[in-house]
């Protein structure tokens, strides 16, 4: 049953009670089917080196932990080589570096693809230089397909992200996914694939990381995704429910401890597994790829502190690394840390910060050790302050500001940025917030829902002119020529139509209402650029001197006053999106597909109650059999 290629398909009605499908066994391929080829042998190229420099820290007036002060920094990924061929198949010897300024952004993706942006449009994007991909999106195949790509950097090569301009990092799971999953065990983590849930052990993770060569690797950790809370295992009526986003996932102390133990082990195993004895060709090359460790401990500040301390404690056996000094602590071998907000009570950050002043102590947050801010402080407190800090799934620009100010977070990603484009929202906000037209008036929204009828005749650009490519589009001077006379089409004397104008709200409104995909491309390009500008704004604000945390937090309070949280804007947009979706009528292919999918799901659902002879719960519906098994496993551990 530990066959790593075994799939469990989640039961939609009972998310915590998975059912087991017949395992897919690649060793017994169907006739005529060729077994997957061995991974290609690639040129051994050195790992990139990662450097994080803190350029300045805001002065702290209050006598608070210096570790958590907001800081300006620069993350540098340096490759000792560059791929001259576009597909990255040949390694050259030119050093190449990519700088990411902090506070800044990481672009979260599905399948490593920045939503709606083909590679020529990705080149126009701002704010997508660091692309993060979850491996689970590729795990519907026994070996993830990109691992077979012939290029020296297979993940870059497969996804067509140029190694010269883009960082690609990899985690097993999508860090935004807070849906319930079957239980992890000592041997594996449950990953979600399009074909169901799949078990991934630490050895698999090491193998795939080596094969895929992402620039940065997220350590495999055991983040509990089962619903526990105070659930009484005997009470049949206890409905398994999803966690409420922003309220935190309540996990039993026992489960938290288990998660920490496994995570420590796996982080250490990853370090050992990826550390090389050095590269004789390039002796200066790093011994291992840059590694980011997600910080565990759930919603318990003592546990979080304990987990972080574990990373700093001496290892029982140092990790040898070539001629270098052996690693005595895990922390010495990692580049940075990640906080996964999806399962934390981040809603608490959606209120204006209590401004810190010289005199008034921020008493509220000190009372309860498990407030969001205290959880972060507990995690970061014991750790080396010079390491990179990444927060996943910050729910709003407001929360991003608070995380910078109160926990010194350096990099952010968020699923709502891509969602905004899908919902027809053009983001529009700045930091510091511009002065309000009428003092005391209503707060502005952080964007416009271009589905709204009022934009049908609005020929203004979708955002300010300096904000994004769609607001200042440029035609390329080069055109593909298909025939000998084609250059006549593009001769300069023939260039009519003048300079391109910004794409207007009216045009995007039209595209949204006619279901034209170009709308999403334009909006996502725009929204990424607006986020990028927001971080630019924050960095330039923070680089003013002298500036203290007091002034910063006052400015953040002003931002909270000036802009509403995104909730209402997104809810309205979802409603409008739905209206248009429905109004498109029966002809919509999409609706047909959905109907089809529902039928298919209903058909699959019918199989849930099939009897599986191989399992101890013989004669029981499959999902119950699994539940029995899961409980048995949990008890043994």
């Amino acid at each position, binding site marked *: 049953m530990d066959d790593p290629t075994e799939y469990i398909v989640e039961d939609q009605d009972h998310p915590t009670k998975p059912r087991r499908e017949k395992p897919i066994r690649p060793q017994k391929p169907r006739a005529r089917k060729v077994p*997957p*080829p061995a991974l290609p042998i690639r040129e051994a190229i050195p790992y990139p080196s990662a450097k994080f420099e803190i350029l300045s820290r805001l002065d702290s007036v209050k006598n608070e932990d210096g570790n958590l002060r907001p800081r300006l920094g620069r993350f540098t990924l340096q490759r000792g080589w560059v791929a001259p061929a*576009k597909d*990255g198949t040949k390694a050259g010897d030119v050093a190449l570096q990519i700088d990411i300024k902090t506070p800044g952004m990481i672009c979260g993706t*599905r*399948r490593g*693809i*920045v*939503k*709606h942006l*083909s*590679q*020529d*449009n990705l080149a126009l994007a701002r704010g997508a230089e660091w692309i993060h991909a979850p491996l689970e999106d590729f795990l519907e195949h026994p070996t993830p*397909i990109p691992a*077979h*790509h012939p*290029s020296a950097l297979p993940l870059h090569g*497969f*996804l067509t992200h140029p190694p010269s301009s883009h960082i690609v990092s990899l985690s097993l799971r999508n860090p935004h996914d807070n849906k319930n999953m079957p239980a992890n065990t000592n041997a594996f983590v449950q990953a979600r694939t399009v074909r169901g849930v799949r078990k991934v052990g630490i050895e698999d993770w090491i193998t795939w990381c080596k094969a895929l060569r992402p620039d940065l690797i997220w350590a495999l950790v055991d983040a509990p995704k089962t619903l526990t809370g105070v659930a009484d295992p005997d009470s049949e009526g206890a409905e398994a429910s999803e966690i409420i986003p922003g309220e935190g996932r309540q996990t039993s102390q026992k489960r938290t401890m288990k998660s920490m133990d496994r995570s420590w082990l796996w982080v250490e195993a990853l370090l050992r597994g990826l550390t090389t004895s050095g590269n004789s060709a390039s002796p200066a090359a790093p011994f291992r790829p840059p590694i980011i460790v997600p910080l565990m401990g759930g919603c318990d500040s003592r546990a979080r502190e304990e987990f972080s301390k574990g990373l700093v404690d001496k290892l029982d056996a140092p990790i040898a690394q070539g001629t270098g000094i052996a690693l005595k602590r895990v922390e010495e071998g990692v580049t940075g840390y990640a906080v996964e907000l999806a399962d934390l009570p981040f809603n608490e950050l959606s209120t204006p910060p209590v401004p810190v002043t010289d005199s008034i102590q921020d008493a509220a947050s000190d009372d309860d050790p498990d407030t969001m801010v205290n959880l972060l402080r507990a995690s970061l407190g014991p750790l080396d302050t010079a390491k990179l800090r990444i927060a996943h799934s910050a729910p709003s620009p407001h929360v991003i500001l608070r995380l910078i100010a109160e926990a010194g977070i350096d990099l952010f990603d968020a699923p709502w940025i891509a969602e905004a484009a899908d919902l027809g929202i053009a983001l529009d906000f700045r930091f510091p917030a511009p002065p309000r037209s009428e003092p005391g008036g209503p707060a502005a929204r952080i964007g416009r829902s271009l589905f709204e009828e009022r934009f*049908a005749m609005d*020929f203004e650009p979708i955002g300010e002119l300096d904000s994004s490519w769609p607001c200042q*589009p440029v*035609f*390329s001077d*080069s*055109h*593909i*020529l*298909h*025939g*000998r*006379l*084609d250059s*006549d*089409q*593009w*001769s300069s004397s*023939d*260039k*009519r*139509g*003048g300079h*391109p104008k910004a794409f*207007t709200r009216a*045009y995007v*409104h*039209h*595209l949204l*209402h*006619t279901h*034209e*995909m*170009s709308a*999403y*491309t*334009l909006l996502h390009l725009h929204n990424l650029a607006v986020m990028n500008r927001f971080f630019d704004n924050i960095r330039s604000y923070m680089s003013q001197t002298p500036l203290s945390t007091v002034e910063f937090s006052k400015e953040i309070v002003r931002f909270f006053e000036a802009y509403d949280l995104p909730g209402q804007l997104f809810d309205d947009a979802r409603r409008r999106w739905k209206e248009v979706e429905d109004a498109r*009528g029966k*002809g919509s*292919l999409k609706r047909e597909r959905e109907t089809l999918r529902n039928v298919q799901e209903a058909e699959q659902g019918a199989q849930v109650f099939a009897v599986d002879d191989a399992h101890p719960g013989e004669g029981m519906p499959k999902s119950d059999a699994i539940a029995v098994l899961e409980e048995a496993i949990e008890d043994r551990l």
Partner: protein
Amino acid sequence: MVLGHGTTILPTFMPVATQAAIKGLTPQQVEALGISLILNNTYHLNLRPGTDVLQKAGGAHAFQGWRRNLLTVFVPSIFSPPINSNDAVQDSGGFQLVSLSSFTEITEEGALFASPFTGEPTMLTPEESIRIQHAIGADIIMQLDDVVSSLTTGPRVREAMLRSVRWLDRCIAFHKASGRDKPYDTANPNGMQESASPTNEGQPTRPEQNLFAIIQGGLDPELREECLDEMIKRKEDVPGYAIGGLSGGEEKAIFWKIVKLCTDKLPEDRPRYSMGIGFAEDLLVCVALGVDMADCVFPTRTARFGVALTFDGPLNLRLGKHAMEFGPIDETCPCPTCTSGTSRALLHSLITHETVAAHAITQHNLVFQARLMGNARDAILADTYPTYLRSFFARYFGATGYPRWCIDALKEVGVDLLEGTEKGKEGVESAIGVVEGDGARWEYST
């Protein structure tokens, strides 16, 4: 062909931006592909965003940010061919309008439509269709015609043809009266022979709009002849001709004969536009028959279903056999998809999940169509078009067999497709198979 927004070299294929956007792409991307003439759809733009918005935007060029040439056709595409079904594709042969009769009523005054949104009847007269196209401001506009399905027979076909001629007269009259058939310079309005429509006061220089006539007459050669005679009489007011009423499911063997009949008769000094033609073999045969322009949603629509066009035949990238293919769709293709290292494997893994795959294949397919036509132009210039046809068919159909109708049609213009491929003269027609019927070639399941 020099139009208000630049030069377009003919013959050419025109991608379709039904609702003022080539599916998923920006105008900048489309232009970079080497495309200088696209289509918008009058019917759709009139429904959304409507002429008020277009007029306020300063026309469809400005509205969608397209600075090159634009043509507007009137094609209610309520009919939606099930492209992913093998049979349907081969049956329909094209994706132009088939029949309006289910939701329109044609009278001498105009066409009565039911709005797809409200069901309200709307009268569309020839004058109104031109007025809408003035608001859109395309460089080439089309007359309103009375279309019947190419499968229709009987007196209705003749009635439709004659009405199309009468409607052409009304379109010409309205168009000339508006002054839109001439360029208009705001800086020098007195230089104009006729007054501009008041809605465009304050607008910058506006190029002329060219009204094309549409030849009707169904599949009846006599009716086509009659229509041609009538419409050619009006040549002075008609800068170009379209061949309409085809691609509605008729047999290819009849289709090409009608096209040839039209191109034989149409004046040399007017561009000929064959509506709704998009398959590679159709395009090349039509070019051989003397067609200059063609349009079809096929290359963009098929892209969204994961089908990439190549000179070796279409590839269905959804098929599992592409899952591990790390090469591009076509090594020799200059499109952004093929030159960026985008592999068949990547497109296979994305096509059902991410819009990006559709965008990438759309770019590739548009470049394929443009290369097909660009190669045709060069071959015509070099006087080697027959050689080009033979080499294209050998690659594209070599494995499956040549469509019979292509062989017949090309023979009619003096090109023997099978030349040089014969094994022996007697008995065996060719080493290459010949496919009877419509012979579209699809990789849908293998």
